[in-house]
């Protein structure tokens, strides 16, 4: 009897501890995000309330509307500006850049990873050092020479400047993960195909590529996230063509309309958040493989 009671208490204590910890997690992650979300559906006067309205009294989609049509402050309050009209083009640009980076990364990185994996190379260590270097290199420090190079080929303030830079900075990671992936795929099936008279390309297309799809999704998702989020190169190489530096310029407006800014921020993080949730499994895999082995 007393045994089962103590067992019950242990079970109850354990549950309480777990749900307390769970509450901590929800609060830690949720509180900042929740505050941004409620700010984005408030009017500027309501944001000034003290203490804050934790549940918005008159939620409005006006901020989102203004950001999407590109004019804020039409209600006669502060923060009148047309700067926000750059928002939708910036989101389109970010989308284009991110997809281009994903595709280029998979092609160029996939080729290199395949070469590293299937041919005998001493260069394998170079790839390793390359990954390490790009991870510990202050990207800030490369900006001036990079700027000079890109100016020489007339790419400053174009999306291509970003596409090229992002692709190449993500490449070492892509190569690393895909190479590990190719290495684990059975080599003998491929060699059998070769002996049966398939060309390298056929062997790759029919045997290796289909098996490597999960690895390629993982890499693609990681490349998308990095390309969408990158701020510093976008700030220095372009005039806020993409979403992250544009947010900075909204922030630096003389009179910041915090509510419109919250709406703009929310809109702009939807793509990476949706991608992260949908590809959660691949992402975790890519992250841990890239980090633990790289």
């Amino acid at each position, binding site marked *: 009897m007393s045994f089962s009671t103590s067992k019950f208490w242990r079970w109850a204590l354990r*549950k309480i501890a*777990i749900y307390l*910890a*769970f509450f901590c*997690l*929800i609060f*830690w*992650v949720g*509180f*900042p*995000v929740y*505050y*941004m979300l409620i700010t984005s559906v408030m009017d500027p006067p309501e944001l*000034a309330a*003290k*203490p804050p309205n934790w549940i918005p009294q008159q939620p409005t989609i006006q901020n989102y509307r203004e950001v999407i049509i590109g004019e804020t402050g039409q209600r006669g309050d502060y923060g009148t500006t047309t700067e926000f009209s750059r928002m939708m083009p910036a989101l389109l640009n970010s989308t284009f850049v991110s997809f281009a980076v994903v595709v280029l990364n998979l092609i160029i990185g996939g*080729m*290199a990873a*395949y070469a590293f994996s*299937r041919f005998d*190379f001493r260069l394998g260590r170079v790839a390793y050092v*390359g990954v390490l*270097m790009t*991870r510990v*290199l*202050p990207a*800030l*420090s*490369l*900006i*001036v*020479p*990079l700027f*000079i*190079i890109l100016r020489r080929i007339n790419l400053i303030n174009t999306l291509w400047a970003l596409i*090229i830079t992002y692709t*190449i900075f993500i*490449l*070492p990671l892509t190569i690393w993960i895909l190479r590990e992936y190719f290495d684990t795929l059975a080599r003998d099936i491929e060699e059998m195909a070769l*002996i049966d*008279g398939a060309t*390298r390309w056929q062997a790759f297309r029919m045997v290796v590529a289909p098996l490597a799809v999960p690895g390629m999704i993982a890499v693609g998702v990681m490349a998308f996230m990095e390309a*969408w*989020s990158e701020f*510093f190169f976008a700030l220095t190489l372009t005039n806020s063509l993409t979403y*992250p*530096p544009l947010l*900075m310029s909204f922030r630096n407006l003389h009179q910041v309309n915090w509510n419109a800014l919250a709406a703009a*921020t929310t809109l*702009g*993080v939807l793509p*990476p*958040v949706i*991608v*992260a*949730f949908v590809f959660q499994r691949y992402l*975790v895999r890519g992250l*841990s493989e890239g*980090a*633990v082995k790289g």
Partner: protein
Amino acid sequence: MASARIDRETAQRRKHWDRKWIPYALLAPALITILIVIISPLLTTIYYSFSNVDLIFNRTTFIGLENYQELFTSRLFWKAIEINLKFAAIVVIVPTLMGLFFALLLVEDFIGRGIGRTLLILPWALPWIVIGLLWNWLVNAQFGAINGLLYSLGLIDKYIPFMADEDWALIFTALASAWRQTSFSAILLLAALQTIPEDLYDAAKVDGAGLRARFRFITFAWIRPTLTIVLLYNIVLGFLQFDAVWIMTQGGPGDATMLLSVLLYRETFINFDLGMGAAVSNVLGLITLGVGLFFVRLTYRSQAAYA
């Protein structure tokens, strides 16, 4: 029989034939572009750090160690080192401990675990620039959520201008970085925890190992390599973080959040002293490279110990 041999010979010749140039062709695009976009700027930066770069007359003159001498004798540099060490300490300790805490929670079986795991990804999915903005909202002196919360709970009767205070500014910029990095750490640690075979625990239980012993000799031993990597990433971030700090404080108030990366940005883009900026970036690069190599040796040694 004979035809099979011929077939094999053809295949082998073909293999031999494509061995010669195909791998180089496959590698060329990656290696050439990396050379142009990463390696050549890197070498240029190293050269700049020994030069006086005159942007107006487009002249670069070699001046030896002068930039470094000036840097190492400047008060601001040592202050930045001190600030950066404090910043890095928070960015290493908070995400590693909280990441471990959340990972241990989310490996347990309970209702809501799925939600928890999805929620965990959220901070990681947000760009650094958005992290900076989010925390701006939290710490703002007029409508900040932290002020609002303290006020609602009756702990303060006047909003505190956190970011005007040197210590608070440093703490909150570090916490903002820690917030996203906690998710990253927890994701990695959770992935490692999930690979622990359940029967290890069962066997230990049979052998009479208590909770603490099981944690130490199974859980901790199993995730130690991952924990090492997590530490490495957190330390590197502690020295390379720029985006979130830049949008929150731009190095202020005063020089309170003048990390090395912010100093580098100031020298290069505000003072236009490219040589000095390059010197700062090389110091920064050496610090992170040193940390990286140290950890690589550490992992190799522990792997060798297991093998």
